[in-house]
């Protein structure tokens, strides 16, 4: 059980902030989350007390930075159940997925090979594959989703073949918030000799991740969606796959030595993928964030989100003027529209009531083929949201008439 009254004290952004003159209700957690003091303090501590470059200095300050930075691999490893050698720090889930596409994909795909995606994927798990397909002659196909927009093992089974080399999908989708059966999907992919690439941007902070149990080959996620800083993320890859991959960015830190004749000796994974001075304070902040959400407990987080979602969905349905596109979603994400009102107009009105929600297509630009609309409002709850937050949203939706949407401009 989560006591939001206590939890909220950890977050400066939840301390009596106002928006449009009203107490702020933040329901855009799928876009980014607020940061607890422990994360902010960890980053400040690096700036205030031990700023130095990692893996380069023989002096005490630099060793302190080395230890702080390197220890985060283990912290992340314990969160997702992998070895620290399998944790690559990146600039975020987008960067992580691009590494998979351009390092693994370009190296291993050839003409006629198939990449399987879904129409619910975020741009960052689609566009790199479009480009890699173009360069290699591989083809992209889509796993059919069920009538609610859910990715199922049956859907994958209906299209996968020996030609399939990559199956890439989100463990939790970013508009509909369905949890995929990652373990079963990976098992099916492996049965056909394909690798499974999991976009965990919307799942790592919301449900338990166990890459060993899932048996996924890659997992990508971002720190800022899990109470950590922006600009940093993780790519998990199975050790043997990482060892066989060559990086697609080069520079300092990733190599042991190089010579004028072009000889380069790369370091082992994960270092060979981390050229250049990394986002050190970001990684340290990520470590603090992982510790923080682990202390709250992912089971508790999931349970809280689920209870809030069930409550708010029930309340919204009573209104009658709102269409929900993922009534049976699994996480704190609710996709909806106020009937006959353009999503952006409604979101502006809701914003004028102090409530932050997102409108648009949420970078899942192919999803309209499934849900039949291009724009939705997305309200996304997290463990620090309360029933009062839910009530405020319901109230704003109730009053969301076209007159009120226009009224904000006068």
């Amino acid at each position, binding site marked *: 059980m989560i006591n939001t009254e206590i939890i909220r004290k950890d977050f400066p952004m939840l301390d009596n902030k106002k928006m449009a003159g009203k107490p702020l209700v933040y329901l855009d957690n799928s876009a980014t989350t607020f940061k607890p003091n422990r994360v902010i303090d960890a980053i400040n501590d690096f700036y205030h007390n031990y700023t130095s470059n990692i893996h380069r200095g023989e002096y005490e300050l630099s060793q302190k930075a080395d230890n702080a930075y390197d220890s985060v691999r283990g912290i992340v490893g314990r969160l997702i159940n992998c070895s620290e050698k399998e944790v690559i720090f990146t600039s975020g889930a987008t960067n992580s997925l691009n590494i998979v596409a351009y390092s693994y994909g370009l190296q291993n795909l050839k003409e006629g090979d198939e990449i399987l995606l879904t129409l619910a994927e975020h741009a960052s798990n689609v566009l790199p594959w479009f480009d890699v397909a173009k360069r290699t002659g591989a083809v992209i196909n889509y796993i059919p989703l069920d009538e609610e927009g859910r990715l199922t093992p049956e859907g994958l089974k209906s299209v996968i073949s020996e030609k399939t080399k990559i199956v890439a999908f989100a463990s939790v989708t970013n508009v509909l918030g369905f949890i995929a059966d990652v373990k079963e999907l990976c098992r099916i992919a492996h049965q056909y000799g394909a690798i499974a690439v999991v976009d965990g941007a919307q799942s790592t902070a919301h449900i338990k991740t166990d890459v060993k149990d899932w048996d996924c080959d890659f997992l990508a996620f971002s720190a800022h969606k899990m109470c950590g800083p922006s600009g940093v993320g993780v790519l998990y890859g199975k050790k043997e796959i990482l060892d066989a991959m060559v990086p697609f960015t080069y520079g300092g830190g990733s190599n042991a030595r190089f010579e004028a004749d072009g000889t380069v000796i790369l370091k082992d994974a994960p270092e060979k993928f981390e050229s250049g001075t990394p986002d050190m304070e970001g990684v340290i902040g990520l470590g603090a964030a992982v510790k923080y959400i682990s202390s709250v407990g992912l089971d508790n987080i999931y349970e809280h989100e689920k209870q809030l979602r069930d409550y708010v969905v029930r309340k919204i349905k009573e209104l009658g003027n709102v269409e929900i596109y993922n009534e049976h979603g699994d996480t704190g994400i609710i996709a909806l529209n106020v009937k006959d009102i353009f999503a*952006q*107009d409604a979101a502006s009105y809701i914003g004028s009531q102090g409530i932050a929600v997102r409108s648009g*297509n949420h*970078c899942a630009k192919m999803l309209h083929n499934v849900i039949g609309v291009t*724009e939705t409002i997305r309200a996304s709850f997290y463990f620090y949201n309360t029933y009062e937050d839910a009530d405020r949203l319901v109230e704003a939706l109730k009053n969301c008439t*076209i007159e009120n949407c*226009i009224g904000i*401009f006068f």
Partner: protein
Amino acid sequence: MILREILLDHYEYPHNHKLTDSPDFREAHMASESCIDDIRVQAKIEDGVIEDIRFDGRACTISTASTSMMTDLVKGKTIEQAKEIMDNYFAMIDGREFDETILDEAIALQGVSKQANRIKCATIGWHGLEKLIAESEEDNDGK
């Protein structure tokens, strides 16, 4: 009518809201400014006069109403007159001084200047017109 009714009216019953296949019209497809609005503006510009102008597409209240008002304001005007209207409109949306008498009903959109995240909505159709005028001027320079 009070201003908010004017705005609502232009949204619910937009003027000049029908595209044409006529080859006499130029078209600007405005879809890259944001991932939400997607409109087309068409204008028939001859001898420096905007003889006809139309639009359609997927758009919010502000995009629809602002483009509808724009078509009313510039239809039948010379390019020079249209430019003066545009300058004043953009000034209003930027929160700068402008001539109210020139903008007629479009002053209903003055409040958008205080909602920074909706300025793109209030200008998308107008930028379409700007593009069409620039293209027509380039063509004439080439002649």
